[in-house]
C-alpha cells in the first residue's frame, strides 16, 4: 500500500496532477461570435473568411495555489467557416471548414485557442481550361477546378474587447495555421496560413451551455 501511495505521489509530483477540491455543474449563457477575417496563405494568396463560433461547454476553474487564488476559463467550442483565397495566376479557392477546440482565458483580455479543422476546398482555375480528346477535338471546361479534402490545426491568439475597461462586443485575433489539401497529384499540398479576424458578438445572440465550476488546489 505504501508503495502504491509513493507511486501516486511521484506521479502527482512529476506530472503536476491537480487536486479537485470541489465541482459544481450549472448552466450559463455564453456569447455566439460571428467572425470576418482577412486570410493570407503563404506565399502569395490572399482571401477572406466568415464564420460563426458556438460554445459547447464551459469550465470555470478556481485555482488555489500557495494561498493565492486564480481564476481561469476553458471553453470547448466549435467553429463553422466559409472562405476563399486567390492564388494569382493559378486559381481561386473556396472552402468550408468545421473546427473544434478549446479556448483558454484568464481574467485578462488575452485568450488562446487551439483548433482541429476538417473541411472541403474547391478550386476554380484562372483562365480557360481546355481538354483535347484522342481524335484531337478541343473542348473548353467551364468553371473547372478540383475538389479537395482539407484538414489541419491552428492556434488563435486573441484580444477580448468585452473584457476591457470600456467593453465593446468584439474580439480581435491572429490565427496561424498549418493545413493540407488532399489529394494533390496523388500526394498532398501543405499550406501555411495566417488569419486576422474580428469577431462580433450580437447583444442578444447567446446560448446556454453547461458550466462546470471547479476548485483546484495543490
Amino acid at each position, binding site marked *: 500500500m505504501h508503495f502504491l501511495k509513493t507511486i501516486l505521489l511521484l506521479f502527482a509530483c512529476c506530472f503536476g496532477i491537480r487536486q479537485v477540491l470541489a465541482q459544481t455543474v450549472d448552466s450559463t449563457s455564453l456569447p455566439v461570435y460571428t467572425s470576418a477575417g482577412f486570410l493570407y496563405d503563404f506565399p502569395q494568396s490572399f482571401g477572406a473568411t466568415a464564420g460563426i463560433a458556438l460554445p459547447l461547454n464551459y469550465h470555470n476553474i478556481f485555482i488555489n495555489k500557495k494561498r493565492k487564488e486564480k481564476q481561469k476559463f476553458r471553453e470547448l467550442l466549435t467553429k463553422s467557416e466559409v472562405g476563399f483565397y486567390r492564388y494569382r*495566376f*493559378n486559381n481561386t479557392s473556396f472552402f468550408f471548414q468545421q473546427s473544434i477546440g478549446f479556448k483558454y482565458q484568464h481574467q485578462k483580455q488575452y485568450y488562446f485557442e487551439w483548433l482541429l479543422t476538417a473541411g472541403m476546398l474547391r478550386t476554380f482555375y484562372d483562365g*480557360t*481550361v481546355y481538354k*483535347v480528346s484522342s481524335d484531337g477535338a478541343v473542348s473548353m471546361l467551364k468553371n473547372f477546378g*478540383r475538389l479537395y479534402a482539407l484538414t489541419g490545426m491552428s492556434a488563435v491568439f486573441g484580444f477580448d474587447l468585452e473584457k476591457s475597461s470600456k467593453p465593446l462586443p468584439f474580439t480581435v485575433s491572429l490565427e496561424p495555421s498549418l493545413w493540407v489539401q488532399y489529394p*494533390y*497529384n*496523388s500526394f498532398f*499540398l501543405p499550406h501555411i496560413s495566417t488569419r486576422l479576424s474580428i469577431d462580433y458578438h450580437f447583444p442578444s445572440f447567446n446560448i446556454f451551455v453547461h458550466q462546470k465550476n471547479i476548485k483546484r488546489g495543490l
Partner: protein
Amino acid sequence: MKRIFIFILITGFCISSCKKETVHLNTNANELFWLSNAGADMPVWVKGNTASHVMILFLHGGPGDGSYRFVGFQTNQLWKNYSFAYWDQRDAGSAAGNSIYSNLNLPQMIEDLQKLVTTIHYRYGNDMEIFLMGHSFGGLLGCGYLVQNNNQSNIKAWIEVDGAHDYPLADKLERRMLIDTGTSEIAKGHYVSEWTNIVDYCRKHPVRSSVTIGRKTDGLASEAEDYVNINHSKTAIGIFSVSSPVTLGANLYKLYFTEAGNDFLQQLMVASYTPQLNKITIPSLLIWGQYDFTVPMECGYNALSRLSSSYKKLVLMPHSGHTPMDGDPDLFAKTVSDFIEAVK
C-alpha cells in the same frame, strides 16, 4: 415574371457555355490558360506579343522545376516582338490536379505536349507559328515529341537550350568535364578544396548508377559554375513572386522521394534520342553555355552533327553555364531573335 427571369438565366448560361472563347491577339499579352489531360491540370502562362503570330513554347527542365522562373527578366527581352508560352508540365511547378503515379512518364508527357500544341492552334489560330524551345530536360521532351509521327508539321522550328536529349551521353560528359576542369583549376590554385571535393566524388562514382548519385553529381555540376565565376541572377525572387514554392516543393517531393518519381527518374537515366535525331528536319537552333557542366556543349555538337535540318546552327554562350538566358541574356535574346527572323 419569376419564370421569365429563370428562363433568361438558364438560356444565358447555356449560350455562354457553348460559345467559343474569343481570344484577342495583342502586343502585350499576359494571360493564363490550362490544359487538363490524364488527371493533370497544367497551367500555360502566355506573355508578350501574340499579335506577332510567333509563339515560343517553352519546355522547362528539371524535370519538375516549372517554367515560371523563366517568366520575366530571363526571357522578357523577346516579348516585344514575340510571345512566350510558359508551360508547367505535369507534376511540375504549379501544375495541379490529381494525376496518378503511373502517368508520370515520358510518353505521357509527350502526349501532353501534343495536346498542348493542338490547344495553342485552337486558341490562337492555325497561323500561330510555334517555335519549340526545350531547356535541359525540356530538350529530351522536345526531341521525343519531334521524332514522333508527323508532329514536326505543327512546329515552325526547334530551339534546344543546353538540352539533355541524350541522358547517358550528358552523364558521361558531365563527369569528364568536372574532372578535367577541376584538375586544371586545382593546378591553378583556384578553389582548391571545393574542386578537390568535386573531382574526388566524380572519380569515386564513375557512372550514374542510381538516382541519388545522379542528383548529387548534378548538384556538384551546378556548384562548379560558381567556381568558374558564372553569374547567376537572384532567381529565387523571380520564383517566389509568381509561383508558390510550396506547390513546387510538393511536386518535387513526389518526384524525388516517392517510388513513382524514382521510377520515372530511373527511366530517364537511359533515355536517349540521339539515334533518332536525324528524323528532325525543321530548322534548328542549338544554344549552349560554354561552362555548362550539367549538359556539356559536346552534347550540342552531337545534336548538330545528327540533325537533318537544312538550317541548323550551334551558338555558344561565352559567359554561361546551364542557363544561358541567365548568363548571357542579351546575346541569348539576339540569337533567338535572329533565328526566328531567318526562318519565319
